[in-house]
């Protein structure tokens, strides 16, 4: 137990240092130039943080999922884009690690990922699926002799150009139904990315997520043994929603911290004078508390459910609704906190070059409702609510 706690603490200390020394000093430039946060990601590589969740016996850090979530929060406080790249990479690693099912190829892949600190991106969204991750158009097409290929039209691939490897959702075979999906891991050299769009968005600019046509050739062993229908509800969806919401909480927390610093600075200049901004700050804190409570409790629920044998409760309708609601609630609440912080700071918060600037925070969190569109999730929930009894 204490070894595990030590590992978690050392990992978090390293992540906090990277956040302070590499993510924060470059956050504004990453945002302004819409460039990849190379300093923070390289520093995370140096700390072997990209394999933090890989089991120790496979050469990884063996840290807890809770620590990973906290790491996303800490990075989010300093640079939203760095945190998002880290979170999305970890979603792929956690999904692979939780669904190895004894696959020798994937075990050896995780070893290499740890050795070389390889960065994994995901190719899940697809043109023609209406934003439903549970359906694919592109299919894994056998070429004979145990190899296959695919071509996928992806409307966005976050940090696709900067990733070493890609984890892609595909139909199992050319004649498979849209929902009969697998996850395929391809390594640099096995796939090509043909960029189909530009990248000049409102926020999360450093994630560098234009569209691509992804083409790849791969061996049959590079398909994760677990069907995506299991990996999606048991890992990919709840893990995505938890890690994303932690980093959104981190961004909102920093916006609140800036608003608080603004109020304190005003109070110090004129002690004893009425300070309307102080009362506004109290409203922002109420909003932040709601966000924090939702994010914390979701993490606890997931940790408890993950310890059950078979992790069956993760596939129940009540649990699917629970983690869908985390995504919806956190993605709406985080920008609300940031906007409240801006109201506290006034023009000092609106300007991009003061120590109380919260424009980047507001813009970054506004991407939250689009990452798997909230209305798409409401549509799923609406269907479940027609049949689910225990919610």
């Amino acid at each position: 137990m204490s070894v595990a706690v030590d590992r978690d603490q050392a990992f978090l200390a390293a992540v906090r240092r990277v956040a302070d020394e590499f993510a924060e000093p470059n956050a504004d430039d990453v945002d302004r130039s819409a460039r990849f946060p190379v300093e923070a990601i390289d520093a995370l590589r140096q700390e072997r943080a990209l394999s933090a969740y890989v089991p120790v016996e496979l050469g990884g850090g063996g840290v807890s999922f809770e620590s990973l979530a906290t790491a996303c929060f800490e990075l989010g406080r300093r640079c939203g884009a760095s945190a998002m790249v880290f979170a999305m990479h970890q979603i792929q690693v956690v999904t692979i690690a939780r669904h190895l099912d004894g696959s020798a190829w994937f075990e050896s892949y995780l070893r290499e990922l740890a050795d070389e600190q390889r960065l994994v991106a995901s190719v899940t969204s697809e043109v023609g699926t209406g934003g439903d991750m549970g359906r694919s158009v592109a299919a894994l097409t056998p070429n004979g002799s145990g190899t296959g290929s695919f071509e996928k039209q992806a409307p966005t691939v976050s940090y696709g150009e900067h990733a070493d490897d890609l984890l892609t959702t595909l139909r199992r075979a050319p004649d498979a139904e849209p929902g009969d999906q697998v996850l395929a891991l391809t390594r640099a050299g096995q796939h090509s990315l043909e960029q189909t769009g530009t990248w000049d968005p409102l926020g999360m600019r450093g994630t560098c997520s234009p569209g691509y046509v992804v083409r790849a050739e791969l061996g049959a062993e590079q398909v994760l043994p677990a069907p995506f229908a299991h990996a999606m509800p048991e890992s990919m969806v709840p893990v995505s929603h938890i890690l994303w919401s932690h980093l959104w909480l981190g961004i909102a927390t920093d916006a609140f911290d800036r608003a608080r610093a603004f109020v304190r600075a005003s109070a110090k200049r004129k002690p004893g004078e009425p300070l309307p901004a102080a009362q506004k700050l109290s409203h922002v804190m109420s909003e932040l508390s709601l966000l924090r409570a939702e994010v914390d409790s979701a993490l606890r629920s997931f940790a408890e459910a993950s310890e059950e044998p078979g992790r069956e409760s993760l596939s129940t309708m009540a649990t699917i609704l629970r983690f869908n609601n985390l995504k919806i609630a956190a993605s709406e609440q985080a920008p609300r906190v940031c906007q409240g912080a801006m109201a506290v700071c006034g023009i000092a918060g609106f300007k991009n070059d003061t120590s109380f600037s919260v424009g980047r925070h507001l813009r970054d969190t506004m991407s939250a409702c689009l990452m798997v569109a909230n209305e798409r999730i409401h549509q799923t929930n609406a269907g479940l609510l027609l049949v689910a009894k225990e919610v």
Partner: protein
Amino acid sequence: MTDEVRRIVKEHGRLPVDVDSLPADADLYEAGMTSHASVNVMLALEDSFDLEFPDHMLTRDAFESISAISAALGQLLHQEAA
């Protein structure tokens, strides 16, 4: 430092008595400083000495007298120098 503390208590402590007449160890709350006024004293101290009181030092005792405030500041300044 004690002179500066005395000046800030005088300006922001809103005491009904003349602060200059109080000994350094006189109880400021007994002399009429409200807890609201003590917050303003703290803010003014933070501004004047360019430091921040950590939450654990924000006790009633730390602001009880001019000498207690000076001692707390001394501890903070010493920590910053270390």
